[in-house]
């Protein structure tokens, strides 16, 4: 076993190669606390097999092992720290595998450091640090990357969190009062249907019994939740475990905590408890957050303070080397730049926008809804309407019934322009203090501020009507999904050249083109747009429903141009700074995303796509819609594309081939040379 696989040092060692901001006493405090090395932590992973080789390039051979631990050697790199679970569960953790000898942890090289560490021996025998740290940190093992080629960048993650003077907490439970609050809240949502059922059912015993059973089940559920849920803050993550039958454990790194939200409804306040929601991801879905419903109000405050304090410490340490704090510099020059002011002529573009074209119908629907509501409440009003209908001439009614929709349809463009004007009156886009400020609106003046450092790209949208006038809408792709959909409008519908100009001034222009997708994609688009209607048509023939056959035929014919247009809009491309993907017909969208914002890729291939060598390539972005898909790109082309954009992420997983050996071999070196290369924009011109 490689010494650095086993030794706990990677996270605590004040490695000379790593720019750790932490002073020696910080190091010491962390060291004293742990993590204790898991010397029996045999990793069963493939990339570990090198660990079993007797040749130890780092610990034994090199005179300066600390450099090796920094990963600068290029032979191997250590990752750390890792967490063991509670001591109570520790036995179950030993992994299958041969007995590997404990690593040589001599004091060679760092005697003064080793003398402080409590982990000289076997991890199991190690006494814990003075603060009774409940987690053993494992060494995490080194991820030997033979096939990945030499790594060049020093890894610094352990140094970033090298000093947290906190002890981990042991698992805590929710407030016992949550057994009351939870069931009441659950029952409240089903109270109405139950009551209706009981009243309509005339309180028959079956219904009463079912209701009783439901109440008991909910109460038991509340009890089980209270019994099984445990939460625990360690010094760099919070862990929530729950579940009796289906067990779940959520681990949220404190670095990722975006906010801690403490709320309490009236019921919660009456019982003196609060709901703590730990917002972790950008997503607004509950699934990605940690929710504690409910804890004592005092505990909630303590939790919030504790989480934010620990996160702040982590962030402080990590921020400087990461260089993400652009705020202070940006605020130094609080001048306002106007990127765009809407010219008068733009208001006419409202007539092209589908959303605005449909306003009269939306208004009509609202009106009818209102009438119905008030009619249901006031019988008198209904009577009046009915009386008026009776007394009015039938011919007039018919004229009205035909006339009103015709007028509405004719007025659609007018309404659209009016509605567009009301929404977008005096649209301006300004830059101020590192933010983009979009202001608009005639009656309600709406001002939206988007931090520039949260903008990851932009999106150009158009519909077929807008395409006839070469008009597009501009939206920003912003991190944080919450209200982004409504907030991210950067420019209303307008002529493409002006929009491009504003993009260039406010953000940065996308210079690359879009490469079309293979012909096979056209067939698939056509099958998609025509096929379903052919199927319903066939079913109609089978069932001898002529209306279905006729409707399907019409839709199938309409599907042909739609499919062709869908194919024509498909495309993907990249330049030095951006990746771009376009798709759609009735709502065509071209997303332009910074290369550094690409946080993953996925390729999806159905059976049919596989037969024609196609795949859907999804660019994962932690902003905007979360992912942008290049539909039906050629699979090998899509893989090469991803490898061009983020060589560091994709190249290690490519097949080395004879045919493309020259290009891809060279590319591999290049890609491996820049380790987290997706943050960089390599000169990709030769790729085209």
């Amino acid at each position, binding site marked *: 076993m490689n010494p650095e696989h086993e030794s706990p040092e990677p996270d605590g060692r004040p490695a000379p190669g790593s720019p750790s901001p932490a002073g020696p006493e910080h190091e010491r405090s962390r060291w004293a606390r742990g993590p204790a090395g898991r010397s029996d932590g045999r*990793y069963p992973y493939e*990339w570990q097999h090198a660990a079993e080789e007797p040749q130890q390039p780092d610990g034994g051979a090199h005179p300066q092992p600390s450099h090796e631990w920094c990963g600068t050697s290029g032979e191997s*790199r250590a*990752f750390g*720290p890792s*967490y063991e679970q509670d001591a109570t569960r520790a036995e179950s*953790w030993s*992994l299958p595998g041969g007995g590997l000898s404990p690593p040589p942890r001599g004091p060679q090289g760092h005697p003064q450091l080793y003398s402080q560490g409590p982990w000289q021996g076997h991890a199991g025998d190690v006494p814990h640090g003075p603060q009774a740290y409940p987690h053993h940190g494992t060494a*995490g093992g080194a*991820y030997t*990357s033979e096939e990945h080629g030499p790594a060049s960048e020093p890894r610094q993650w352990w140094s970033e*969190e090298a000093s947290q003077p906190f002890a981990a907490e042991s698992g805590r439970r929710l407030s016992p009062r949550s057994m009351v609050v939870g069931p009441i809240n659950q029952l409240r949502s089903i109270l109405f249907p139950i009551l209706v059922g009981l009243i309509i059912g005339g309180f028959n015993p079956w219904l009463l019994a079912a209701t009783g059973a439901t109440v008991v089940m909910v109460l038991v559920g509340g009890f089980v939740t209270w019994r099984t849920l445990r939460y625990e803050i360690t010094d*760099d993550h919070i862990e929530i475990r729950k579940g009796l039958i289906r*067990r779940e*454990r959520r*681990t*949220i*790194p404190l*670095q*990722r905590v975006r906010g801690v939200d403490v709320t309490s409804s009236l019921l919660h306040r009456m019982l003196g408890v609060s709901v703590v929601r730990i917002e972790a*991801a950008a997503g607004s879905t509950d699934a*990605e957050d940690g929710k504690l419903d409910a804890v004592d109000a005092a505990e909630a405050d303590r939790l919030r303070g504790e989480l934010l304090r620990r996160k702040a410490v*982590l962030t402080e340490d990590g921020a400087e080397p*990461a260089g993400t704090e652009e705020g202070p510099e940006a605020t130094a020059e609080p001048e306002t730049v106007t990127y765009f002011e809407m010219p008068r002529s733009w208001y006419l573009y409202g007539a092209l926008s589908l959303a605005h074209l449909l306003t009269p119908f939306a208004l009509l629907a609202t009106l009818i809804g209102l009438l119905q509501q008030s009619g249901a409440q006031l019988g008198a009003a209904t009577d009046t309407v009915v009386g008026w209908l009776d007394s009015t001439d039938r011919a007039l009614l018919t004229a009205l019934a035909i006339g009103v929709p015709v007028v509405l349809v004719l007025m659609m463009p007018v309404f659209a322009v009016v509605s567009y004007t009301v929404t977008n009156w005096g649209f301006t886009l300004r830059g101020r203090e590192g933010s983009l400020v979009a202001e608009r609106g005639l009656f309600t003046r709406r001002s939206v501020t988007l931090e*520039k450092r949260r903008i990851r790209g932009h999106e*150009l949208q158009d519909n077929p009507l807008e395409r006839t006038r070469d008009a597009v809408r501009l939206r920003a792709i912003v991190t944080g999904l919450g209200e982004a959909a409504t907030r991210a409008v950067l420019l209303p519908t307008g002529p*493409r050249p002006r929009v*491009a100009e504003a993009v260039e001034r406010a953000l*940065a*222009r996308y*210079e690359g*083109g*879009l*490469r*079309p997708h293979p012909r096979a994609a056209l067939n698939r688009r056509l099958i998609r747009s025509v096929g379903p209607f052919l199927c319903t048509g066939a079913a109609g023939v089978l069932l001898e429903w002529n209306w279905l056959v006729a409707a399907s035929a019409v839709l199938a014919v309409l599907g042909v141009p739609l499919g062709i247009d869908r194919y024509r809009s498909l495309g993907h491309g990249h330049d*030095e*700074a951006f990746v771009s993907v*376009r798709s759609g017909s009735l709502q065509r969208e071209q997303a332009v995303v*910074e290369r*550094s*914002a690409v*946080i993953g*890729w*996925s*390729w999806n*291939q159905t*059976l049919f796509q596989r037969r024609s060598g196609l795949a859907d390539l999804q660019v*994962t972005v*932690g*902003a905007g819609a*979360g*992912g942008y898909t290049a539909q039906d790109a*050629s699979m090998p082309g899509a893989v090469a594309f991803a490898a061009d954009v983020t060589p560091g992420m*994709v190249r290690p*997983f490519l097949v080395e081939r004879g045919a*493309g050996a020259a290009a*891809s071999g060279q590319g591999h070196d290049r890609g491996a040379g820049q*380790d987290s290369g997706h943050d960089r*924009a390599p000169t990709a011109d030769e790729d*085209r």
Partner: protein
Amino acid sequence: MLNSPAHDGRPEPGEGPREHLTEEGRTAELRPPLRRVSGRAVGVWTVRMLLGVALKLVLISVVAVMLTNLSLSWIPDRLSENARLLPIAYGVYGLVKVAVVPSWRYRVHRWEVGEDVIYTRAGWIARSWQLVPVNRIQTVDHTQAMLERVFDVATLRVQTASFAGSSTIEGMDADEARVLSEELAARAATLRDDAT
């Protein structure tokens, strides 16, 4: 924001001349991830699939019985006469599926944690490959449904700032999954990257 230097001879954004950018010979191929999931996952999938097939078979049988006996006027005769073929056809299909799919899926499902990227492959006839960088991980979920506990396997789910960037490894050995989840959570915590 990155500001790209201006280039000459580049096409207009979005609407560029395509002849420069045709799908030429540049291709690459993904190799399969190195590690398989636990062999016991086949058991989980088989049992789960059996239950699903059985449930659907019951539903389809009910529908078929209704079609045969109710003889509603709007249902064509041809359909109601042959309704009993529906559950038989589905049953055969279901059995073949249960026999074939789990082991097939076992061959496809693979995962690998590279230097700082999680690489997974999943599916059976439809396949998906996914890359998730470790430094973008936001939460790591280790879940064991009841069936999975019986077979001592677990599902590891890694979420990033994007819903699309969530990666799931089904049917890992439970202990291995636990170690990996701790490992990933720790690495994600220490690898700070604000770009999300």
